[in-house]
Structure formats: C-alpha cells, structure tokens
C-alpha cells in the first residue's frame, strides 16, 4: 500500500514539476506583447512635446490674436490677426497669401486650409512662451478642448493632417534657405505618439 502511495506521489510531483517547467519556459520565451508602461509613455510624450513646441508647430498654436513666423517666432508681419475663426478677417484671410502648397519661388509657405489652431489648443502663454510639457499634455488630452479627439484620433491627426505634415515639408524661406524641421522625423513623431497613446496618454505631473 505504502509503496503504491509513494509511487502515486512521485508521479504527481513529477507531473506538477513538468507543468511548472513548461509554464516558466513558456513565459520566458513569450515575446513582450503587454501594453507599454506608464514610464515608457511619459518618455514618448516628451518626444512628442519636443516637436509640438518647435517653431513649425507652435507658431500657429498661439495664445494671442496673431500667428508667429520664423524660428525666432516673431509676430507675423503686416499685423495679421487671428479673426473669429482662426482664419484671419474679412478681406485678409490666411488664404489671401498662403496657398495650398509652398510658394518656393517667394518663400511664402502654404498648405491645405492654412489657419491658426483654436485658442483652446494654445501651446503658449500670452507672453509667447511655450507652455510646460504638463500643460500642453493636459490640453491635448482634454476632449473638451481638443475638438473631441480620443487617442486614436490624435494619432490619426499627427499621422495625416496636412498642416501637421507640412511641418516636415516647410519649404524655403524668403532668402532661399530651407526652414528648419522639427527635432524628430515624422515617422519618429508618429511612433512616439503611438507609444504614448498605447500607454494611456499619461501626462507628467
């Protein structure tokens, strides 16, 4: 009897041990498919932020009544004003000068539906200084302020919106030299946005 019990116990233990080995091995061999951690998301956000505050982006995300231009982010010449819809004013719209494409011969930039971002998406203060990473993150994750965009829509916006894409094809300045680009490539920007979105769009505190 005892011998039978001992054998049974040995077999059971062997089965348990084998199963444990299989589970541990499987878990070690399994590729990482878990969602990104918050820390990874925050790091990705900082990359996104570095692009958002570059002149190609932030010049049209002002808190003031005017757009900015140039790497020094000067007030737009000719006293251009925002207007009620962010498209300029009657008789003097953004599209009065900015066409659907860059005017390479004159240095006037262009893109489809050239306009200012709404004031709810201001990324600067009234002294034309960029908002903090935390403040911009909170703004663009607030669907009451960002036009109702969820994470997927934000990713799509960063991937496809023509004026976002313009930042990587900004054309030449009036003097013929090329405008500076954002600090990341567009592919890197989209990848960082995707990582941040998949991590739950965390914002720094």
């Amino acid at each position: 009897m005892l011998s039978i019990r001992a054998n049974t116990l040995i077999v059971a233990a062997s089965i348990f041990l084998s199963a444990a080995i299989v589970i541990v091995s499987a878990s070690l061999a399994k590729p990482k498919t878990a969602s990104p951690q918050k820390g990874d998301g925050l790091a990705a956000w900082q990359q996104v932020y570095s692009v958002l505050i570059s002149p190609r982006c932030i010049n049209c995300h002002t808190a003031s009544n005017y757009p900015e231009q140039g790497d020094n982010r000067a007030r737009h010449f000719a006293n251009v004003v925002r207007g009620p819809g962010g498209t300029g004013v009657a008789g003097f719209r953004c599209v009065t000068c900015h066409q659907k494409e860059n005017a390479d011969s004159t240095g006037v930039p262009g893109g489809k539906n050239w306009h200012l971002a709404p004031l709810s998406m201001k990324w600067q203060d009234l002294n034309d200084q960029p908002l903090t990473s935390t403040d911009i993150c909170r703004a663009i994750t607030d669907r009451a302020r960002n036009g109702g965009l969820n994470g997927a829509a934000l990713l799509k916006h960063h991937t496809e919106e023509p004026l976002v894409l313009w930042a990587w094809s900004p054309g030449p300045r009036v003097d013929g030299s090329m405008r500076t680009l954002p600090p990341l490539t567009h592919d890197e920007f989209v990848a960082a946005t995707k990582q941040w979105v998949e991590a739950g769009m965390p914002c720094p505190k």
Partner: protein
Amino acid sequence: MAKYQLTVNGQRKEVNADPTTPLLWVLREDLKMTGTKYGCGVSACGACTVHVDGVATRSCMLPISLLDDRAVTTIEAMANDRIGRTVQDAWVEKDVVQCGYCQSGQIMTAVALLKETPRPTDTEIEQSMGGNICRCATYVRIREAIQLASQRLK
C-alpha cells in the same frame, strides 16, 4: 506649358501657360488685364489683390495650376458690382488716390471686407486692410472712403 481654362469676371478664358506662372502674370500678360498691379511679388504689399471665389487673394502668390475651377474677379469688374461701384465712387469723392499704383488692390480688399462685413468698425477696417501697403500713405482717406461706402450701402 499647359492649357488652362479659367473664369475671369464671368467670362471663360483659355490660356497656355507654365503651371508655375502666377495668376497675376496670366491676367496681365496673357489676358492683357492690366488693372491688377505687380507690387512686390512676394505677397507683402497687396497691390495684386483679386478675388478668387470671393476671397481676397494675392494673385502674385497663386500659381495658375492651383487655381482649379475657382472664379476670378478683378478690378475691371468692380464698376458693374454694386459694392464695387459704391466703393469706387467713395474713393473718388474722398479723393483717396495720390499716385494710385496700389489702389486697385486697396479697392479689391475693401470690397471683400464690405461684402462680408457691411458695417465695419475702424478696427476691423485696419485689420482687414493691414496687408495693403500705400507708399503715399493714403490710409486715413482709405478708411474714410470705406466708411462712406458702408454708409451708402445701407
């Protein structure tokens, strides 16, 4: 070179032009409509302003290949436009013009303003006209003429 069909002041036109040719030069050189003036060529002065589908547009900045099927209206059509005629009459009455070179662009912008904003404030006039430069500095008379036209259009 390519052929382009365009509508200018309600008339269909066909031109053979390089796709990068600005609308300004199509108007002046191909269609011989010289009321629209060349000022700076970089969208900085407003002398070349026309309306494209009713929107004041710097014709020096618009390559003919990007015009598509949008209608072009130039200073030559203003005499037959109710608001355009009223603005031109106000311009004469206020004796706005000095050298006159920029004035077709000034009038085109003023008409675009009044079509959208029939009762503009002084601030709205200044904001709308801010991209139209007058070397003779006729700005005060321009503002007065726009105000006069606005009153006449009531």
